[in-house]
C-alpha cells in the first residue's frame, strides 16, 4: 500500500483534485437532495395493481386460500422468484418460488410454469413430520412450517411430491412458502402476486371439495407434476390452450442424482445389519444351541456396536437435533416418528439381551440362580429384541415407501433392506463359525450364498429397466445408476467381491474375517448411497440443466 501514499504528491493541484474527488465520492446526498416520497403514507402504493388478484373476503368454513396461475400470462420472466427472495429477506440463493417449463417435442409446444407450495388439503409434509412442525391453519388453509419446532430431518422434503420444503444449511431447518400469510392478513398480496408483471399469479378461494374434485378430474395439476390424489394440492393452473397430455417437464431426462443423505445410509445399514445379526443369533440358539453357544457373545456384541453406531449416526442427519424429543408428536401419521420410537425401544432391550447373554456365560452371577430364570429371560428378551427389531426395520421400509417414489416401492425397498438384514445375519454367523470353530457346517455356506444371491438380485433387477423402450421413473433410476453413478456402482460391486474373497480366505487366517466385515460394511453403505441417489426426486417441472 506504500505506492498509494505517494510522498511526492503532497500538494499539487492534481493531488488535491484526487483527494477532493475521493471525498466527494464518499458523500451520500441523494436522500437530502431529492424528494422523500410518501414519508407518512402507510397504505401500500402498489395496492391498486393487485386488488383484483386477491380475494375480497376471508375464507369461510371448508374454504382455503389457493394459488391460481394463468399460464397464458406467464412468460417465464422469473420476477416472481426474485421478488419472493427480496420481499421475504431470504438467504442469498433462497427463494420459495420456482419457474420451469413443460415441452412437447411432437407438437412443438412449450409453456413456462411457475410454482411454489401448493398448500395441499392433505399435505405430505405435515403427515410425514415426526415432530409436528407443520400446521394447516384452520382459517386460511395455509400450510405453515414452524421454524423453531423443526429438527431438520428433511423427511418432509422426501414426502412432498413437489419438492417444496428446502433445507437451509445455515439454520439447520427446512423452510418453505407460507403464502405471505401476514401480508394476506392485512389485505396485501403475497410477494409473487405483487411482482408478476402480467398478473399471472393470483390468490383464489377454493373449497376442500373442489380440491378433491380437481384431483379426480385431472390426474395432476399440470403435465409433469405428480398425481394429485396423493396430497390434494390446491393450486389451479388455467390456460386457454389445450396443453397436450404428451407434454413433459423440460428436465425430465436429466440424470442428475438425488441427495446422498449420508448419515441415513449408515443408520439404515447398521441397524439392519444389527437386527439381522440378532435374527441369525436367535435362530442359531433355537436350532443348534450347543453349537452356537460360544458364538453368542461375539454375535450380540457386534449387534450392539453396529446398532449403537447406527442410531447415533442418524442424529448427525438432524440439522437441529435439540427438539428431537418431540418425536412422539408425529406417531399418528408419520412412519418416521414410528421408526424412531420403535428403534428407541429396541436398543434398550437389545442392551438387556446382550447383558443377560454375557452374564449367563460368565461367572458374574451365581450359577444357581441363572438356570432357573436365565433361559426364560433370554427367551423373553430375545423374542422382544427380534420382534422390536423386525418391526423397526419394517418402519424403516415404510418411511421410504410412504414417499410414493417408484425406486422406493414396497417391493424394491423391502427386497433391499431385508437383503441387508439377511446378508448381515448369514455372513456374521458364517464368519463367527469360521473364526471360532474348527469346522463349519456346509449348511452355513448354503444360507450365506442364499443371502448373497438375494442381495445381488435385489440390486441388479432394477437395472434391467434401462433397456425398457418407454420412459418411466424406474428406467430413469436405472439410467442414473448406469451413467451418473457408474463409479459408485462399480465400487459397490468391488467391495462385495472383496468381501466374498476375504470370507473364503478366512479358512487360512482369521484376520481375513475382519477384512470381510469391513468390505461388506462399505459395500452395503455404497448400496444405500445408490438407494438415495438413484431415486427420482418428485418435483414440479424444472428447466433444462442448471
Amino acid at each position, binding site marked *: *500500500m506504500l*505506492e*498509494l501514499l*505517494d510522498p511526492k*504528491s503532497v500538494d499539487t*493541484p492534481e*493531488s488535491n*483534485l*484526487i483527494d477532493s*474527488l*475521493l471525498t466527494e*465520492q*464518499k458523500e*451520500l446526498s*441523494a*436522500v437530502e*437532495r*431529492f424528494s422523500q*416520497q410518501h414519508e407518512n*403514507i*402507510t397504505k*401500500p*402504493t*402498489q395496492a391498486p395493481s393487485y386488488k383484483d388478484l386477491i380475494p375480497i373476503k376471508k375464507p369461510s368454513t371448508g374454504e382455503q386460500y389457493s394459488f391460481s396461475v394463468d399460464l*397464458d400470462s406467464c*412468460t*417465464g*420472466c*422469473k*420476477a416472481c422468484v*426474485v421478488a419472493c427472495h*427480496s*420481499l421475504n*429477506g431470504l438467504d442469498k*440463493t*433462497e*427463494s420459495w418460488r420456482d419457474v420451469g417449463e413443460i415441452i412437447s*417435442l411432437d407438437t*412443438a409446444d*412449450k*409453456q413456462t410454469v411457475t410454482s411454489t407450495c401448493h398448500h395441499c388439503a392433505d399435505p405430505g409434509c405435515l403427515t410425514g413430520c415426526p415432530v*409436528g412442525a407443520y400446521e394447516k391453519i384452520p382459517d386460511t388453509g395455509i400450510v405453515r412450517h*414452524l*421454524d*423453531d419446532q*423443526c429438527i431438520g430431518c428433511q423427511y418432509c422434503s422426501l414426502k412432498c411430491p413437489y419438492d417444496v420444503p428446502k433445507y437451509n444449511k445455515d*439454520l439447520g431447518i427446512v423452510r418453505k412458502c*407460507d403464502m*405471505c400469510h401476514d*401480508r394476506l392478513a*392485512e389485505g396485501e398480496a403475497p410477494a409473487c402476486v405483487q*411482482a408478476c*408483471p*402480467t398478473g399471472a399469479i393470483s390468490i383464489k378461494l377454493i373449497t376442500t371439495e373442489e380440491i378433491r374434485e380437481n384431483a379426480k378430474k385431472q390426474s395432476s395439476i399440470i403435465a409433469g407434476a405428480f398425481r394429485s390424489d396423493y396430497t390434494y394440492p390446491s393450486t389451479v393452473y388455467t390456460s386457454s390452450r389445450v396443453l397436450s397430455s404428451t407434454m413433459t417437464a423440460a428436465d425430465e*431426462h436429466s440424470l442428475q442424482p438425488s441427495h446422498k443423505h449420508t448419515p441415513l445410509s449408515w443408520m439404515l445399514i447398521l441397524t439392519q445389519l444389527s437386527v439381522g445379526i440378532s435374527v441369525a443369533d436367535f435362530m442359531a440358539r433355537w436350532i443348534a444351541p450347543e453349537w452356537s453357544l460360544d458364538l453368542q457373545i461375539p454375535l450380540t456384541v457386534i449387534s450392539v456396536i453396529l446398532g449403537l453406531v447406527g442410531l447415533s449416526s442418524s442424529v448427525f442427519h438432524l440439522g437441529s437435533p435439540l427438539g428431537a424429543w*418431540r418425536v412422539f*408428536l408425529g406417531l399418528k401419521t408419520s412412519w418416521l416418528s414410528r421408526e424412531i420410537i420403535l428403534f428407541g425401544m429396541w436398543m434398550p432391550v437389545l442392551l438387556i439381551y446382550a447383558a443377560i447373554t454375557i452374564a449367563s456365560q460368565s461367572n458374574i452371577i451365581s450359577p444357581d440362580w441363572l438356570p432357573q430364570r436365565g433361559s426364560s429371560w433370554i427367551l423373553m428378551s430375545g423374542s422382544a429384541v427380534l420382534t422390536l427389531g423386525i418391526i423397526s426395520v419394517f418402519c424403516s421400509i415404510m418411511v421410504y415407501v410412504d414417499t410414493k417414489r417408484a425406486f422406493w416401492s414396497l417391493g424394491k425397498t423391502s427386497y433391499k433392506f431385508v437383503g441387508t438384514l439377511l446378508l448381515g445375519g448369514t455372513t456374521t454367523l458364517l464368519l463367527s463359525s469360521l473364526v471360532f470353530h474348527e469346522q463349519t457346517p456346509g449348511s452355513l455356506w448354503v444360507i450365506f450364498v442364499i443371502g448373497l444371491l438375494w442381495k445381488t438380485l435385489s440390486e441388479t433387477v432394477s437395472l434391467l429397466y434401462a433397456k425398457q423402450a418407454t420412459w418411466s421413473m424406474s428406467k430413469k433410476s436405472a439410467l442414473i445408476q448406469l451413467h451418473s453413478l457408474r463409479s459408485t456402482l462399480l465400487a459397490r460391486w468391488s467391495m462385495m467381491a472383496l468381501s466374498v474373497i476375504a470370507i473364503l480366505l478366512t479358512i487360512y487366517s482369521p484376520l481375513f474375517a475382519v477384512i470381510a466385515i469391513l468390505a461388506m460394511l462399505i459395500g452395503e453403505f455404497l448400496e444405500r448411497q445408490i438407494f438415495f441417489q438413484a431415486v427420482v426426486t418428485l418435483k414440479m417441472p424444472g*428447466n433444462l*440443466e*442448471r
Partner: protein
Amino acid sequence: MKLKNKWLNKIPPIIQHTGPKTMQLVRAQGKFGLGQVPHHSAPDQTTSMVCGFCSTGCSLNIHIKDNQAVNITPDSEYPVNIGMACPKGWEALEPLKADDRATTPLLRKSKDSELEEVSWETAMQHFQEKFKAVQATHGDESVAFISTGQIVTEEMAFLGALAKFGMGMKHGDGNTRQCMATAVVAYKQSFGFDAPPYTYQDFEQSDVIILIGSNLCIAHPIMWQRVERNKLNPEIIVVDPRTTETAVAATQHYPIMPKSDLIFFYGIARILIKNGWIDQQFINSHTTEYENFAKHIEQFTPEMVAQQSGISIEMLEKLALTIHKGENVSFWWTMGVNQGHEATRTAQAIINLALMTGNIGRAGTGANSITGQCNAMGSRLFSNTTGLLGGHNFADPAHREKVARILEIDAACIASESSLAYDQIIQGIHDGKIKGLWVIATNGAHSWIHQDRYKEAMQKLDFLVVQDMYSTVESAEHADLLLPAAGWGEKDGVFINSERRIGLVKKVALAPGLALSDFNIFKLVAQYWGCGDMFKKWSSPEKVFQLLTEITKGQPCDISGIKDYKMLDEVKGIQWPCTEEDIGNLAIQNERRLFADGEFYHPDGKAKFIFSDLTPLAELTNTDYPFILLTGRGSSAQWHTQTRTKKSAILRKLYPKFIYIEIHPLDAEKLNIKSNQVINVSSRRATVAATAYISTSVQTGQIFMPMHYAKANRLTHGSFDPYSRQPNYKYCAVNVTL
C-alpha cells in the same frame, strides 16, 4: 410461586410457534407506501431512480437504512413500469457488493508482467504520458476511445468532449454500435433525425402489434407487461425464425428463414400495394419517394418471397390482411433486425410499411425501434461520437459554432469529420494506424463479433486503458492500465430510455475503495492532460446536464424546458422534446409521441421511403458448415456479458451455468445427440464446446446460442451493415459434432 414459574418457563413448549428462527422471517410495516417488508431491512428512507440494465427504464424504489441501500422494490407510480420490475431490476444492488470490484487503479509495468495496484497519481501520470507519446509518434488519430450505452448521459458527454475537444482524439465509438446503430441511421435517413416516435402507452392502444426480431417477453418483460394490459384483444404478431417465449404468447407467428427479413417486408409491402391497402392521402401529404419505392418492390413477387423466407403465400397474404384490417397498427423491432447484414434497409422497410399505411403519429401506431441498453438513447444524442453533442452534425459549421459557444471553447477544437466506427477502429488497430485505446464500461473481449480477432487487436496496442467496475472483466485481460469505476447507484446523472424518457439515477451507495465515478475520472484525466480549464464549467453532473439542455435548444430533442434534477424527480421522468411551453402540459399528459402533426425532420417536413436491392450474405452455409447459428438473449435473469448479473446468487440459479445451444430434435437424431450432451460447435473461426438442449424452438438446420457466455462470439462472423456498420450477430455458418 416465582421459583415455580421460573422452572416452568424453562421447559420448552410442546409446539414452538415462535422463536429466533421464526423471527427471522417476521415482516415489518414498511412506511413510505411500501407495504410489508422484511423487518431486518425495513428502511428509514426511500428514494426512487431508473434501473441500470435495459432501456425499458423502470423506476425502482431504493430502501435506505442507516444510509445504506438495503433493498429494492419497483416504483408503483412511474409511468414506465407501474410497480413492476424484471429479476435484474430487483437484484440491481447485488452487483455493487461483489468481491471482485475494482478498488484501486491497476498498472501493468511491462507487457509480460501482472497488473499491480498503484495510486491515482501514478495511474494518471502513466495515462497521459503513454497516450501523448503514442500521439506524438503516430499522430493524434492513433489514440481512440470506445464508449458505452451504460453510463449516465453527463458522463458520455464529458468523455466525448474531453476526448475529441481536449485530447485531440479523432476516433471514438461506443458499444451502441453493436445494438442501435441501425435504428439510428434508419431513422436519420427516413425521418431526418434519430427519433423513435412512440411512448409505451402505444402498446396498450394498438390493435395489431407486430414484433420483429424482438423476444419482448424475455428481453423487455416490462414492455410485455404493457402488451398484457392492452384491453383491445389485439393481434400479436411475431416475426422471428425461432419460436420464442413471445412467439408462444402471440396470436400469429411467422418463422422466417434467418435474414430473409428484407425480402419478406418488401413482399408484404407489394401485397399491400397490389390490394390498394395503403393510405394514399398520408403518402401524398407526408412522404416522398413512394413512387420509386413501389416500382422497386415490383420484383418481389409472393412466389419469390415465399421461396426465400419459407413462409407460404397464404400466410403472407394473411399478414398483409391483418395489417390492413388493423385500425392502429404498430411495428416494433430490436436486435433481430438491427444486427443483420442489410439491417438498415430492413429497418427502413419496416418504417416504409408504417408510412404507407398511415400508421404513424397516432396512438397505438408507429415504426418503433426498441432500444437495448439503459442509456443507449443518451449515447445516441450526447456521446459526441457519430453525432456532435445534442444530435448535431459535425459537418455543419453552424452546429460547431453553436456548441463551441455554449461550451465556451474554440470552435476550431471541434472536428468537421466524423470518426471511424467500432469495426473500423479494430481494423485500424490491425493495420497499425491506431496504437492506443481507452475502453470505458464495455466488455468488447466478450461481446464484440469474431472475438479472437478482437483479442488479437488488443495485443497489438501500445497502450490499452480499461475503465470498469470489476478487475475481473474479460476486457481487462489485456489492459495495461485499469481504472476502477463506480457503478449504477454510486453516482448521479440521467438515463434516456426507449421512449425518449429522461430519468434520474442517484447516488445511494458508496463506491468501494478508491473507485471513482466515470465523471470524476474524466475530471482527473482533463486535469492531468492539461485541458482542465476547458472543462471548468463541468463541475458536477447536474451542471453538465444543464449545459446539455442548453445545447439542445432548437433541436428536435430540445430539452431546454427541464430546469434541473429536482424537476425530473418530481414529474417522474420527462420525454424529449420538452421546451418550456411543454412543461405545463406534463401534469395532464406525460406519455407523448412524435409526428402527431405528420411533420418530420427533413427540411421539406416529409418522411422518405428508402430502399435498395438485396445484398447477399457474407458467409453462407455449406456441407462443412451446414447449420445457421442464431445468437440472442437467453433469459430475463442475464444481462449481456453478465459482468453484473452473474454476481447475484439468486440470478445465477435462474439460467443454465454452462454455454449451451438449442437444436431441433430431427437434427439431434441425425447426429445422435442426446439432450444435455456436451457437443462441439465450430465455425470457420473457432470451435466451442457447449451443452445441447433439444428443443423445437429452433427450426431444422438452425441452432441458437445465447450471447451471455464468453465463448459465443468466438464463432460469429465479422460482417457489417454498410450504412450503420453494425455487426451481423444473427447469421453465420457452423457445424455441430459430437
